[in-house]
């Protein structure tokens, strides 16, 4: 028997959401215990700050320019490499439970396997893999799919309809009548995408994902090796946890988060020091991407809105922690505890009030890029707990899974496995982490490339609709942890900036052309 792999992801979660990373609000004892006994990465970045590109990087071990999923709505090629396929071929049982999102959600033509599998109530579907042979889609023999509410073509929505036909309508309606991300407000402060959800906790998707994981693991023989990707849709907006749980965190008791600048004059000064799309979005004059409500103007966000959104996210994070606890208990009961590796992360962060903004977009700062990432190696591997300061990326996950399973690093991957500590990081060459952004939304084009190394984050804005290629951002993370002092144009930092840019351009993989088509908004 080999090591089992439980890969836990959340969606749109900040580094500081967890107690082990300094979070003071949500109680996350289960994840904190994984951190205490495992390896915590304090500078882990995604390779893109929206879902589909980032998740494609996790599965393929490739940067965005290579796997080609440059924005939500661009499907990952069916024959793209998948670490789940490698693990399955080596004898692992494989499942993905919860949110997949390698393929677009809005799909009335049912062109994409995830939507066919979900709407048909299937376990999987055969696709032609990268080796040209039919195999379970992306290497997963079992899918139980969910997304952020009770509608859509997924297993969770089908299950929910059977349990309570009225339940789907209790969630916040993610899209409005024009199929735009819904700008409606709710809760007690009329905060966007907030709703008091009447759904019973046991019917909420967080509980369902944990239950489905427990059920699938229960179906496996005791001597099975397995890779289970347990993918929670929360704390991604909409922020609509079960109303029964609202007493966990009262928004009125919260301070505004450190990243929120209460003084509007100072907030706007900070925004004006960044590339122009920041202020344009804040003012509602330029919406670059589909992921934020186009009819909502961030400038209208109030401090109470920020408190309420944060309270909702903290509640959702507590529910996730408790759900993970249930899964861990069931795994221990199966006798797999000593051979279990757990990896915990998310696909990207959330602005959550920082700079007076919510949601996500071409904003390469810690709010969206600094992620929780924890690897709790199997006890049988005898790996010492550590905190790693070296920059790492989600691009290392596929190599890490291969390493755990005793496989050679797949040729298609573009990064070494995650390091066990900072010495190991040096040996493996974890010097920098790269993040890419490209969006094209009906003629509005934005591109950004970012490098983080040696305590600096440097972003170059590519020529596009509002940028001419001369703008960018440069932050000293040690002295400016909230990234409010953009040094891009500082004469004292030109050499630093240019050295970072040189390293970034020489380290980015060559973009695979032609670009894959965007087949849906999300």
């Amino acid at each position: 028997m080999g090591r089992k792999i439980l890969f836990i992801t959340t969606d749109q979660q900040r580094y500081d959401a967890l107690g082990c990373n300094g979070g003071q609000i949500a109680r996350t004892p289960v994840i904190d215990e994984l951190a205490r006994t495992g390896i915590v990465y304090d500078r882990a970045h995604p390779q893109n700050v929206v879902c589909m590109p980032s998740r494609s990087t996790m599965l393929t071990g490739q940067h965005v320019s290579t796997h080609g999923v440059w924005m939500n709505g661009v499907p990952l090629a069916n024959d793209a490499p998948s670490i789940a396929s490698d693990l399955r071929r080596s004898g692992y049982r494989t499942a993905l439970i919860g949110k997949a999102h390698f393929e677009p959600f809005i799909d009335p033509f049912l062109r994409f396997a995830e939507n066919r599998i979900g709407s048909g109530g299937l376990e999987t579907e055969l696709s032609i893999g990268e080796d040209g042979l039919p195999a379970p889609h992306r290497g997963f023999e079992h899918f139980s799919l969910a997304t952020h509410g009770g509608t859509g073509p997924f297993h969770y929505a089908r299950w929910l309809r059977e349990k309570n036909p009225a339940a789907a309508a209790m969630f916040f309606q993610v899209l409005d009548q024009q199929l735009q991300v819904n700008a409606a407000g709710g809760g007690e402060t009329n905060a966007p995408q907030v709703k008091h959800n009447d759904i019973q906790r046991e019917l909420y998707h967080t509980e369902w994902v944990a239950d489905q994981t427990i059920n699938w693991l229960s179906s496996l023989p005791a001597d099975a090796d397995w890779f289970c990707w347990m993918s929670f849709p929360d704390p991604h907006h909409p922020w609509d946890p079960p109303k029964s749980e609202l007493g966990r965190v009262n928004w009125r008791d919260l301070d505004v988060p450190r990243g929120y600048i209460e003084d509007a004059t100072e907030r706007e000064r900070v925004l004006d020091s960044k590339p122009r799309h920041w202020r344009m979005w804040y003012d509602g004059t330029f919406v670059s991407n589909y992921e934020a409500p186009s009819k909502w103007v961030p400038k209208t966000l109030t401090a109470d809105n920020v408190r309420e959104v944060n309270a909702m996210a903290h509640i959702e994070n507590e529910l996730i922690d408790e759900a993970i606890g249930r899964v861990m208990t069931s795994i221990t009961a199966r006798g797999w505890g000593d051979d279990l590796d757990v990896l915990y992360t998310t696909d990207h962060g959330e602005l959550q009030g920082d700079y007076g903004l919510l949601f996500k977009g071409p904003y390469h700062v810690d709010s969206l890029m600094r992620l929780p990432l924890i690897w709790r190696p199997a006890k049988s591997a005898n790996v010492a707990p550590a905190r790693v300061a070296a920059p790492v990326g989600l691009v290392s996950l596929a190599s890490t899974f291969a390493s755990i399973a005793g496989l050679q690093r797949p040729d298609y991957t573009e990064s070494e496995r995650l390091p066990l500590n900072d010495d190991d990081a040096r040996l493996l060459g974890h010097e920098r982490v790269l993040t890419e952004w490209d969006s094209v939304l009906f003629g509005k084009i934005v591109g950004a490339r970012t490098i983080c190394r040696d305590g600096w984050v440097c972003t170059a804005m590519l020529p596009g609709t509002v940028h001419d290629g001369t703008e960018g951002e440069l932050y000293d993370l040690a002295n400016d942890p909230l990234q409010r002092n953009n040094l891009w144009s500082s004469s004292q930092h030109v050499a630093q900036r240019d050295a970072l840019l040189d390293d970034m351009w020489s380290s980015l993989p060559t973009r695979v052309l032609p670009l894959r088509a965007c087949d849906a908004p999300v």
Partner: protein
Amino acid sequence: MGSVRRHVQIDRDPDTVWKLVGDLARQHDWFPLTTCRVEGKKRWITLPSGIVFEEDIITHDHSLRRFQYRIVGNPAITSHLGTCDVLDDGHGGSIVVYSTDMEPEALALVIAGAAGEGLHKLKTMMEAA
């Protein structure tokens, strides 16, 4: 308004390509649809998800090799014009262009995606024949 366009080059002459593209009751042979039903200037198409769109046929011009249609009777779709042209590529082959102008604009991307898949299948079918 969402305005999108997809195209494909096909190594078959435009009249041959138009024989299939211009047969509006057979669009499901190459486009990701389940069925097409034509009655006079009306067409109904069924998507694989079971959704049925009612369409007005605006242009069906064999000499121009152009087909235009509007999705109607769907309260979620406030404006739509779809256009499919089969053009001579000047080298004995064809260029098929599929355009969509639509509100809600988000749905234009979805139809463009389906058109892209359909055009790819059309090229495969035509060049194999």
